[in-house]
């Protein structure tokens, strides 16, 4: 089974089964990963599914667009690899994909 890893701010690892074609936010909320809210339901409008993509994996995902960058600019916890999980579409080639969670969601 292909898997995805979410590392919390405290270093705790949560894994979830990879579901081809789904958004990372949906995978996280469906698997009860703590620290990802997804209040707007996945349309890049609330900023509460902020993740920091592990530097080994930044090449594997689509580039950020201006709408997503603007939402992310509103969180004081933004880092260089910050993304919104709802804007990351997971593919079967991403077995082992790893993201880190910020201490707080905005």
């Amino acid at each position, binding site marked *: 089974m292909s898997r995805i890893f979410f590392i919390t701010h405290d270093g705790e690892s949560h894994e979830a089964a990879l579901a081809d074609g789904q958004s990372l936010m949906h995978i996280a909320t469906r698997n009860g990963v703590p620290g990802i*809210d*997804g*209040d*707007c*339901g996945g*349309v*890049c*409008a*609330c*900023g509460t599914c902020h993740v920091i993509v592990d530097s080994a994996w930044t090449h594997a995902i689509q580039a950020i667009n201006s709408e997503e960058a*603007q*939402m992310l*600019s*509103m969180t*004081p*916890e933004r880092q260089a690899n910050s993304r919104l999980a709802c804007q990351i579409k997971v593919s079967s080639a991403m077995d082992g994909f790893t993201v880190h969670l910020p*201490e*707080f*969601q*905005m």
Partner: protein
Amino acid sequence: MKAIDQIIQKAQATIPIDLQIRGAHLYQKVKRAALPSARSPVFIERKIPDVADVALADIDVSNPFLFRQGQWQSYFQRLRDEAPVHYQPHSVFGPFWSVTRYEDILAVDKDHERFSAEPFIVLGDAPEGLSVEMFIAMDPPKHDIQRQAVQGVVAPKNLKEMEGLIRQRVQDVLDHLPVDQPFDWVERVSVELTARMLATLLDFPYELRHKLVYWSDLAAASPETTGGSADMDETFVAVADMARHFTALWHDKAARSAAGEAPGYDLITLLQMSESTQDLVERPMEFLGNLALLIVGGNDTTRNSMTGGVLALNRYPDQFAKLKADPKLIPNMVSEIIRWQTPLAYMRRVAKHDTMLNGQFIRKGDKVVMWYVSGNRDERQFEHANDFIIDRENARNHMSFGFGVHRCMGNRLAELQLRILWEELLTRFDDIRVLSEPEIVQSNFVRGYTKMMVQLTRKQAT
């Protein structure tokens, strides 16, 4: 910039703000005396007919008594079902579109390229001389810069520092409440707690904290903007007083920092430390606007959710029983309270160019009102949307915080305050019984309560 604008800016920067407000007040007095059309609208409460007896085209949800008379649910339901993007050409506030379905509201809220938040986010326009500027009513990029300067004050990291203090204050207020006798929940709990919170965020003199509530109430209640009952003269006097206090606070802070005092985490200090806002006091309308925004944002909203939660649990006693059996439901209940109450009913936008929205042609310049209070009761999004269900699965999807770049900056503070309130209430009291129907604010914007009599029963030691 035009020469005249430069002169105005220069004048604004050099004449004390409170004198400017007084000048504008005098001008308004003269104008209103001379021109009947310049007078504030006066709203007289009449019984609102059942929505079934009104032609679709005549529905006017800007009526400031719609919430008080409990007619809003049926009115918005009809709009959602029959005219989800509805035009009302003859309101007191001018023509406006109502957007009432969840999906459509989300689409408008996200799209600041098509729908501008400028110049103002309530239905009517501000009276001349009080057209303060606030970032909630600015588009990017100016919005983003100003918001970034202040959002740290309510960012979760700062809140973590404040959680202990908030809890102490909640405990103090609850420990002094009368038990087994009637009292007004709004005054003793909701207003008191939000006033203390605002004073903390602003580092405002604690003993003067009720001034913040008073200013905020007036700012949100002018007849021309929200259909409220505030008196224009009283409002001008209050705004001048607010300007004087905040300016003094600003200069006091600056002097203390210059003398080497360690910076605090309060709002004024944050503004002074950010490059884009360190000279904000020299742009008085922006300075006043942004402070007014933060006190209104932190006042009416959380206060009325504090009252609304008690009311909701009284209307749905099975949910109260469920909560007492499982206090771990508090965080989800907090979201459900904020959905059920929707303390601010809408935000207004203006179309930036001709556009289509759910089949309706909207012209450049038209006012477009996103009725969050309706989206939060949209059956297309929430099952049994009118019911209060504390373990509702998608309660967090509520629209009360808005979506997109203007999403409520204080969302986590609001959730924190409400969570702590309910944690502390459940450890102390077995029942909070609402004794009579609450009194409801006259407004088309604030879904608020002015009075709600309750009686507490102390929890028996187990």
